[in-house]
């Protein structure tokens, strides 16, 4: 049975959040249950090594290579793992393609599920109550807050990540990018375009 008593153990920690984290880190370190150097390593990984650049590489390759794109849409987990992108919060990947007929957008209404190996740690707005509450009910109003307006002929499909499947949006390739290299294309792919709250950048 889930116990719903109101004297949760966390109430014993200091009220100020930074001190609460510090207290828990100190207790666990003194008991030999965490290694502070491992914490530094985890922070460095998500601050500097794993982020939206990974996803942008996948998108740019899909724009450039029709065979790769076909395979990506069929079995993204294997295809992105072959590029070296696999791991925590990305064990089961599905890539969904935007077209002129359908725009895809991703949310997790119950918590904040997000494809970490391809996009890193989610931005604050993705984890906000406002996004979690509204993306499923009024995606077009939410898109407008990101400056995105879709034509009436485009339907919106919102993916609520309720399981361990992690979704990445394959944005439409912008016009005027013919002949661009994969590296050049990757610079046009924004984090928001891979969540579906943005579109890829148009080259200057």
């Amino acid at each position: 049975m889930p116990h719903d008593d109101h004297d949760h153990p966390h109430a014993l920690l200091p009220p100020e959040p930074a001190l609460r984290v510090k207290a828990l880190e100190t207790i666990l370190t003194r008991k030999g249950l965490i290694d502070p150097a491992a914490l530094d390593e985890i922070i460095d990984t998500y601050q500097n090594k794993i982020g939206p650049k990974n996803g942008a590489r996948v998108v740019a390759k899909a724009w450039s290579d029709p065979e790769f794109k076909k395979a990506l849409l069929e079995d993204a987990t294997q295809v992105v793992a072959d590029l070296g992108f696999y791991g925590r919060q990305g064990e089961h990947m599905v890539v969904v393609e935007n077209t002129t007929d359908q725009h895809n957008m991703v949310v997790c209404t119950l918590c904040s599920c997000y494809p970490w190996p391809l996009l890193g740690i989610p931005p604050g707005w993705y984890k906000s109550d406002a996004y979690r509450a509204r993306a499923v009910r009024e995606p077009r109003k939410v898109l407008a807050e990101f400056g995105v307006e879709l034509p009436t002929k485009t339907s919106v499909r919102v993916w609520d990540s309720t399981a361990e499947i992690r979704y990445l949006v394959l944005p439409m390739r912008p016009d005027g990018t013919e002949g661009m290299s994969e590296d050049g294309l990757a610079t046009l792919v924004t984090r928001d375009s891979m969540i579906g709250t943005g579109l890829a950048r148009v080259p200057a």
Partner: protein
Amino acid sequence: MTRVHDMGGRFGDGPVVPEAEDSPVFAEDWHGRALAVTLAAGFLGQWNIDKSRHTRERLSPKDYARFSYYEKWISGLADLLVDNGVLCPEDLIGDEYDSSHPLSSRVLQAQAVPGALAKGGPADRPSDVPAQFEIGQAVQTLHPAANRLVDGGHTRLPIYAAGAKGRILRLHGTHVLPDSNAHGLGEAPEPLYAVAFPASELWADPEHPRDEVVLDLWQSYLEPA
């Protein structure tokens, strides 16, 4: 029948505030620390992802609403550590320090971090539960949305989708059932589907006649429509 985290469709939260693409990954130093302590403690192997989600969901509605994202994490972690017997309440108030904790041999070392994060923890498992639905088949979700094994327990069927009619879009294979796994009742893997619902099936005032919401739902959440 629900908890405060189940907020899909809720009114009243105001605008979404976008952030610059290059905004810092961790807005405050302690945010990164909270994430890292939580992940590192998870590697002690004393709980699973479903149990940790359920612990955050069991924060009182008052705390859930007032806590920032990483405060929920760190508070959930304190609760997990005590609920699972890793720490006792006296430890949290700093009265007890013990340098020879029985789990200390499992500590995640710095050099093991890249491998541990890269390894992940897949949720698909072999299952002898056969797939009952085909792609394109009409289905209806259970109503009310609730854990059927444990009263007030964890479930991944949001309340906004309870009793809704949709169609099977894809079969993801067989996955661990959170409703069971969150409560130590076993992984109970079963078929998991992506199910598409017309917006008009979920909302009184849908924005567009062809808009849809897709949810990943376990077979036991579904009935033939």
